[in-house]
């Protein structure tokens, strides 16, 4: 399988730019993994425990890549990214639950839910981005953290029900005032239950590929270069006429929209959607930041690998029982030290050199 994917690349590679080649390799790696795990799972070889990790890995990867757009490419530290995932998850799940019985075609409903989730998260990103992006550095980080928490808190006090008269929205469950036969859709901290479970590995894979294509192409575009110039030297960029607000907002909104899609994928993977610190609060935001930092700021391929690896580690450690989370923490520390250590960096460089050297000789 791996050969099939690589062969057309090699033929063309002489004419491809290094950036394009690098991106294609990333897409190739993801495809190989998809084909491998999809085959294993359809053959029934893959354990149930690993099968249930496939979709979560997909949304972790999407979250990491989208946050990398803000942290790595735009160079602004955002630690409220899970908030956008939350917006996407709730809007998408709300739509799906409302139309569950009236919409016959499952995939189309799921697609619309995705679009709704992405648009809602983008709007949230836009509204939040206007005040937030006026700040810099630590201040920006803290304000994004606060906005992430606000989003989580808001969905926890919202009660939305539906009866024959239409929708009822309240901040208190007693005041929703549903008629006989009415149904609560969003039930405060109990969240949304009964979301149709449309997420699967194939959908997750398609979304990961789309995310990668969007983000890598954005980075390689005029807009992307403008965004990166802001990161590298804001004053110099401004002096040559780069519109700071416009490009900052563009990157922020695109990143939020992608996070919204990840949220929709999350919401349709479980039928119990609640917002707490571990899934949409700062714990999650920090976790995504860890994926991005470990993978390397600005490195899309790094984000993909780090997210997939770090999400699955706690599950792989199930064998050690109660020491699971302790072991995870230790491995995380070791990885952070080693990944950044002089020894490993040198080794990576050497390895890169060898691979490149080998290719040149072959050519």
């Amino acid at each position, binding site marked *: 399988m791996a050969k099939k994917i690589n062969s057309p690349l090699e033929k063309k590679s002489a004419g491809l730019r290094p950036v394009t080649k690098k991106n294609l390799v990333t897409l190739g790696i993801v495809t190989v993994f998809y084909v491998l795990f999809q085959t294993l799972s359809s053959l029934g070889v893959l*354990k*149930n*425990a690993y*099968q*249930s*990790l496939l979709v*979560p890995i997909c949304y972790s990867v999407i979250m990491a890549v989208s946050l990398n757009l803000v942290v790595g490419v735009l160079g602004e530290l955002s630690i409220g990214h899970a908030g956008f995932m939350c917006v996407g998850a709730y809007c998408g799940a709300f739509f799906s639950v409302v139309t569950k019985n009236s919409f016959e075609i499952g995939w189309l409903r799921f697609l619309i839910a995705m679009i709704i989730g992405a648009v809602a998260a983008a709007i949230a990103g836009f509204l939040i981005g206007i005040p937030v992006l006026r700040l810099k550095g630590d201040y920006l980080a803290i304000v994004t953290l606060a906005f992430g*928490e606000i989003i989580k*808190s808001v969905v*926890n*006090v919202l009660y939305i029900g539906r009866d024959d008269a239409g929708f009822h929205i309240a901040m208190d*469950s*007693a005041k929703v005032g549903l008629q006989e036969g009415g149904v609560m859709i969003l*039930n*405060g*901290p*109990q*969240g949304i*239950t009964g979301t149709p*479970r449309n997420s699967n590995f194939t959908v997750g894979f398609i979304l990961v590929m789309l995310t990668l294509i969007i983000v890598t192409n954005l980075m390689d575009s005029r807009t992307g270069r403008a965004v990166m110039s802001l990161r590298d030297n804001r004053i110099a960029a401004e002096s040559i006429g780069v519109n700071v607000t416009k490009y900052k907002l563009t990157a922020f909104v695109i990143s939020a929209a992608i996070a919204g899609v990840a949220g929709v994928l*999350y919401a349709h*993977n*479980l*039928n*119990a959607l*609640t917002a*707490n*610190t*571990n*899934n949409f609060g700062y714990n999650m935001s920090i976790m995504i930041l860890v994926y991005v930092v470990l993978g390397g700021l600005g490195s899309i391929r790094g984000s993909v690998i780090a997210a997939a690896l770090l999400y699955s580690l*706690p*599950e792989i450690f*199930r*064998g*050690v*029982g*109660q*020491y*699971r*989370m*302790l*072991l995870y923490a*230790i*491995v995380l*520390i*070791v990885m952070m*030290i*080693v990944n950044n*250590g*002089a*020894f490993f960096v040198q080794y990576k460089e050497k390895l890169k050199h060898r691979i490149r050297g080998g290719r040149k000789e072959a050519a």
Partner: protein
Amino acid sequence: MKVKQILALVLALVMCFALASCGEKKPTDTPSDTPDVTEDAPQGDVSFEKEGVIKLGGIGPITGDLAQYGVAVQLGAELAVAEINAAGGINGYEVAFKMEDDTGAADIAVNAYNALKDWGMQTLVGTVTSTPCVAVSAEAVNDNMLLLTPSGSSIDAISAGDTCFRVCFSDDNQGIVAADYIADKGLATKVGVIFNSSDSYSTGIKDNLVAEAAKKGLEIVATEAFTNDNATDFSAQLNNVKDAGAELVFLSMYYTPASLLLKQAKDMGYAPIFFGPDGMDGILGMENFDTSLAEGLRYLTPFLENATDDATVKFVESFKAKYPDRASYLNQFAADAYDAIYALKAAYELADVTPETSVSDAGNLLKDALTKVSVDGVTGTAMVWSADGEPQKQPRVAIINNGVVEAA
């Protein structure tokens, strides 16, 4: 420099492997020195008539904020399994119980469920907390696996299908029972409620308490909310219920925030009657908690350690004998889990389910059998289940007197 780094790396790796091998020896992660019931051959001289093992899985928070509940369920279930095995097992087969950690999160619980399926679980005793139970019950219904949660009390926890049952009361039932008790005993007429609005357990009980209070002629003078993120300062909420003239304050929450709240109430000199749901159970076992603060606190509980009925006495004795240094886990969660295993035993025996029965067939047989058995357990005598999975038993109210939990 380089040498140091390599050395650090090697040492870290050694530590990891050491930990990993520690774990492998005891895959059930029983945090005690008791014999391992799940993996080892039958203990002592009990010999089982038949080959094969009945595999029961458990899911709950073994690590994290809610670990107190998960570990209690694990200990209670393992105690029951050890007793059953010592008495010859179920239908002549040995019973194995394996607990997996979900840290209280729905997505991790589904992962844990799948890991247990790989192990060969036939019936699930779990999950311990409500939200994960909603997600896992959907999976269990998909596989037509019988799910008996010891303590998942939200309405949705077992509404996914007809193979889902629970041992504890539902939140609905708790709120209603609490309001009835307050009204019938004439404890108070003006009631204030403080609840955690970011927690489904707290809001579920509060909603039903408020609804039932209206029917019973109780006046709810104030309902004050807090969230997980500001669960450290309750002075605003306490002042509001005090100003509203509440004679009784219903603490619709778990005991961790309640312990802080009681401290702050004492500091401001406010001493109404405090009443809580079963989440208060375990408050006296908290580390560094001044037990005098909880004096006079009343709460609903299905299990009282110093009750005098035979089942409770026997359970308490064997629990203390098996886990001498873990007495703080002797609470209703352990009792619920203990009863869950015995309820399953009764159902397995009635339906004559064996390890060879497929998960789906076992689900069909057991869901019928569970509605036909009557179990005399620690959390209530003559417990029976209806087809919707709800148990029927009499609730009890506990009061803390001189640092001891007593029946009120």
